[in-house]
């Protein structure tokens, strides 16, 4: 079976760096890269009725934006480098969802960029990479 690397992207600079790292690794190891974008979402939020009624649309456009803005360009870069790539966009809690995807696609490792938030911000909002390191079912590479 081919080695699978799960690459977490969000369009930030950190995720660009993660992409180049995953690219160089995958090339030397002959691995396949799964590019995953997780849109932060919770099923337990409180919405107005109008937001609920339009939610289906919103979801589609969020996925569309993530795909065309981040996932597809990343896949194109990978393809240019001759690396097999697959794209995924999901809604959910980032760390939890990435772990679930890793299991699903049988990833050998997860590659994620660091946002480099200040201490206070990270304390309040938590850090996706930090959470992932604590909870992921496979080794996590955090690209600085």
């Amino acid at each position, binding site marked *: 079976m081919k080695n699978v690397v799960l690459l977490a992207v969000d369009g930030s600079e950190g995720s660009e760096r993660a992409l180049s790292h995953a690219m160089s690794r995958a090339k030397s190891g002959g691995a396949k890269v799964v590019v995953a974008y997780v849109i932060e979402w919770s099923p337990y939020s409180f919405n*107005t009725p*109008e937001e609920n009624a339009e939610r289906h649309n919103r979801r589609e456009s969020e996925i569309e934006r993530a795909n065309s803005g981040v996932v597809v360009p990343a896949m194109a870069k990978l393809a240019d480098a001759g690396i097999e790539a697959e794209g995924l966009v999901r809604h959910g809690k980032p760390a939890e969802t990435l772990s679930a995807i890793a299991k699903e696609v049988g990833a050998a490792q997860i590659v994620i960029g660091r946002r480099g938030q200040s201490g206070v911000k990270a304390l309040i909002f938590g850090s996706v990479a930090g959470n992932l390191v604590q909870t992921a079912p496979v080794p996590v590479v955090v690209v600085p």
Partner: protein
Amino acid sequence: MARFLTFLLAALVLSGPAFAGIDESINTFTAPIAKVIGDIVFFKITIGGAGLPVVVLWLVVGAVFFTFYMGFVNLRGFKHAIALVRGDYSDPNSAGEVSHFQALATAVSGTVGIGNIGGVAVAVTVGGAGATFWLIVAGFLGMSTKFVECTLGVKYRNENPDGSVSGGPMYYLNKGFEERGMSGFGKFMGTFYAIGIFIGALGIGNMFQSNQAYVQLNTVAGGALDGYGWLVGLILAVVVFAVIVGGIKSIARVTEKIVPFMAIFYCFFAIVVILMNFTSIPMAISNIFTGAFTGEGVAGGALGALIIGFQRAVFSNEAGIGSASIAHAAVRTNEPVTEGYVSLLEPFIDTIVICTITALVIGTSQVADPSFAGDATGVAMTSAAFERQLSWFPLPLAVAALLFAFSTMISWSYYGLKGWTYLFGEDQSMQTVYKIIFCVFVALGCVVQLDPILSISDALVFLICVPNILGLYFLAPIVKSEMNKYQAKLASGEIKKFKH
């Protein structure tokens, strides 16, 4: 949008103080109409000295029927409802769609309102402690009615070309009767319902709420806001305008987030007060049971207590009126019946939990000191019961009442809008017309004492439960077969849990 806002502001500032004069003439003009409509809708039959409004009987008979017909789904489906809300059965692939929890939370914030705080006090004042017992029974039976109407709301909703959804009684009445070859009748019922929910949204979903919020604020301010109703109304109208027309999501999001915490905060301190009155608890509970069956000191005895209890429960949880099915229709599910299960938690939270807690706060205070509230009734009575133990509570209670009123207005603005779009189509500019009308009524609610208009709207909201429940009887077999099919799929493992 900014021009609209300035226009609205200017119009209200200029005419605000003038409203105070014209309400008199509007009242004289509409009072006879209100009386006629009220007399018809709330037509009472007298049994053993107690007046029983036929419409309440209609709702209760419906709720009892659906409870038996659906095989006590209100009891048997309870555990499954909780599992659905927790997301145990949610497919991870549909993450990002409206979840069961979100649909329930939105519908609950539409029903938890002034009625949970003030309405219960009215029930206890008029119907005695025994009314509480019947309130709980009505809440329990209402769960079955909700189950039926919310399942239908999802099943017969419209998916608009732009991907948004429109659902509710007007859609299931229209389409459901059409399926049975009665399309003319279905069209009539759907239109009738849409008109009723539109007018109801301007009254009890709007003017009544803004009015009560103003009254409560003024009480806490010690009357300092006397004569400033137009200002409070204007501020409220502008905030509502910003949310529903301006699409300023942040305000809505903040309220929608604060309201559940306010509800928890309210329940928490209510339990604190009940515990502080602990020596009175056994007596208060025994009063509820003896009152329920003897009706001591209540006009019409036990039956009087029963009527009051049932009436208040319907006012509070809206089971049978069909409004909540409009909110529930937004959920994404392949099985409409799942939303029915979820919705049965609504009367439970609203009536069996929150109303009962309020009733116990008042009941225990009454046992400890029968004259604790003086002549006060409604929200003021509940406020006094809290104040006996926690002197600082009236202020946060007023804030809670204001927020409850606000979130109820936002929910009802949507219910009314769906009635409006059913009648006039999904055209955006027509929707804006409706929303502006809605905001004007928010301001009006604080300015003028338009009791007749309120009674008209009140009556209409109850009147629409006539076509709604009639439709529910007709369509109940469909709901039942959906329920049985779904249960079979659960049992066979075709529908499985994603979370364990």
